[in-house]
């Protein structure tokens, strides 16, 4: 996120709406923070996927403290970043593996194409580096070659992969993997699941079944349910989190693909709406590209503050 948010935005909008760019450009020089400037800032936040509600709220807070004051570009950026970081601070909670659980069971869920399997690969890598005995469960028995994809990660990280044939029952698979992990006294059991749209009730029901079946062995599992969210997702992310939370008691989020252009603002909206912990963010395709979520870094990146 080297390139500032404002300059990215400026680039992005230059062709289609010259006027907007100009007005934001004028926010950047020293000027009075008046209604027009505030409206421009609000637009900038909306264009970063914060959503109209959250953008309005942040700007309102801004208005009450700084309206009419002379400000510089840097003042605005720093202040905005602080405002946003304050919303995010409470949700920046890392996922800590409880080594006494043997295994700490982590169920990974999400809609299609958000990066569940890649996230599991990255987590497995990080746990391997910490010397934790990790077992992976190829619970996506639906998508073509999903099992093979996880097996590649298993090989890379040295974690055994429990898998069944295509179309195998993922609940049964998870159950068997859990018995194995308990027998081997593994530290972590990472359960992959097929991507599913949250409005498909039958598929969501299937997910609850995976949990139900695993609980026959141990009512405390899964200890963590991670919802993997694509940072390019717009306002529909709110609905996604809402439904998954309802159906499978999501305990935390992993936000992937935070390595692109101006985006990921939906995280702010989610923090405000649900307050679910953001355990990690994915910033690239390499195993080491899963990072702890740093609110101030993120907020500064979002608004392009130095």
């Amino acid at each position, binding site marked *: 996120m080297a390139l500032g948010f404002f300059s990215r935005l400026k680039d*992005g*909008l230059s*062709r*289609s*709406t010259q006027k*907007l760019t100009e007005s934001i450009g004028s926010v950047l020089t020293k000027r009075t923070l008046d209604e027009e400037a505030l409206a421009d800032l609000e*637009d900038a936040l*909306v*264009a*970063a*996927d914060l*959503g*109209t509600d959250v953008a309005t709220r942040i700007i309102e807070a801004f208005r009450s403290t700084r309206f009419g004051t002379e400000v510089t570009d840097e003042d605005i950026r720093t202040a905005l970043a602080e405002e946003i970081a304050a919303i995010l601070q409470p949700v920046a909670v890392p996922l800590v593996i409880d080594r006494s659980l043997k295994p700490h069971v982590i169920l990974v869920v999400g*809609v*299609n*194409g*958000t*990066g569940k399997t*890649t996230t599991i*690969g990255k987590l497995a890598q990080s746990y391997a580096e910490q010397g934790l005995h990790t077992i992976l469960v190829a619970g996506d028995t*639906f*998508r*073509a*070659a*999903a099992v*093979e*994809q996880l*097996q*590649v*990660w298993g090989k890379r990280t040295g974690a055994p992969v429990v898998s069944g044939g295509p179309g195998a029952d993922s609940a049964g698979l998870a159950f068997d993997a859990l018995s194995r992990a308990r027998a081997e006294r593994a530290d972590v059991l990472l359960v992959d699941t097929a991507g599913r*749209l*949250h*409005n*498909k*009730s*039958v598929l*969501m029901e299937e997910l609850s079944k995976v949990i139900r079946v695993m609980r026959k062995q141990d009512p405390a599992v899964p200890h963590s349910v991670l919802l993997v969210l*694509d940072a*390019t*997702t*717009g*306002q*529909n*992310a709110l*609905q*996604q989190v*809402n*439904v998954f939370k*309802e159906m499978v008691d999501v305990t935390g989020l992993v936000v992937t*693909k935070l*390595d*692109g*252009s*101006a*985006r990921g*603002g*939906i995280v702010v909206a989610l923090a405000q709406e649900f307050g679910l912990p953001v355990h990690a963010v994915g910033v690239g*395709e390499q195993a080491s590209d899963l990072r702890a979520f740093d609110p101030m870094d993120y907020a500064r990146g979002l608004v392009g503050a130095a």
Partner: protein
Amino acid sequence: MFENLSGKFAGVFDRLRSRGALNEDDVTDALREVRLALLDADVALPVVKDFIASVRARAVGQEVLDSVSPGQQVVKIVNDVMIEQLGGAGAVPVNLNAPSPIPILMVGLQGSGKTTTSGKLALRFAQRLRKKVLLASLDTQRPAAQLQLAQLAEQAGVPSLPIIPGQTPLEIAARAMDTARREVFDIVILDTAGRLSIDQALMDEVREIRAATDPVETLLVVDAMTGQDAVNTARAFNEAVGVTGIVMTRMDGDARGGAALSMRAITGAPIKLVGMGEKIDALEEFHPERVAGRILGMGDVVGLVEKAAETIDQEEAEKLARKMAKGRFDLEDYASQLKQINKMGSLSSIIGMLPGAGKLQAQLAAAGKTDIDQTVLKRQAAIIGSMTVKERRTPDIIKASRKKRIATGSGTSVQDVNRLLKQFEDMSHMMKRMNKLGQKGLMRQGLAALLPGNRRQF
């Protein structure tokens, strides 16, 4: 949210009823609502601004017709502009006007659904157009991506290019085209790795692939849930490879799909296809007039009718309609209706297609029910299955002892049986109201006209 734009407009324009033409101030008020609604539907900000400007230009000064309210008139203008900007009425087919083998290049961000769409596209060409299609994966980035396409090819019953580990995407593309020429394929679908618009190295790579294969279509695959970033993605890909068409995936989700409007506005390329599910045949043509309604929260009636037509047994439906018209609707018909609904898929997705049903969906969401439980339908079918023919035809004879027998037979409780009977009664009432309203009334007021104020959801 945007659920009933028409409703909000009605408020804004109520005071306008007596005046002659739409004036600037009134339009500005209404357009503020439109702006928020579009942003909530994930239409990108610069695109929203252009959109609003177009609507304003067309709305101001327009005579208000006697037959409609000013609010309705603005809704119509908004809808018209939306359809236009989405590409006008009707679908645009994939361009296949080129000597074979015709290369089609699939590009997009990670996880947008390129590989699945490639498989669906291959099946479509093979089945509907009887073309000989070759699938080739140039994705050397993601583990097992090439294998995924090979497996999809198998499902679609089309050949895929044999995988040779270690080849670069450019080498694979060349090999695919060679193979296609030698083995006389009609179409070659080149599936590329997902890439970020700001990843210069990978964008250069896809540019080289395009230069080497000279595809007739370069399809940008976009997730319907995409937010404001749609603008950046569209522009970057369009500048790098010249997008000729767009495929919106996951349109079977409940996202409003505002990205469609952004994509179209930025690239100027038509949206050609939409992904409607995980199954390999779930690829449909894009109809701007339907998606307009969806983005605006006005329902997709045509889509509903089509879906119904596809799944519902025509004869059965006609029989039912005749009975309804005569007001003779019994539990047997109810059971067959349940079966049909089951075939159509999730109830809430059906409700989402109905105009005026936005409120209903919101109510369901508020009640913590994001979808109506399908098992209820199964249970109801079981209850009716445990009735005698006579009971089904004349439900009035079902009293306490029959109820007890039916409950035992269907593994339910007497309360369940009661609930079903009550619902059946409600439904019969609804039928009568529907007959009274007639088709016109139904079109005008939508489903809301049928729903009693506070009907409890089962």
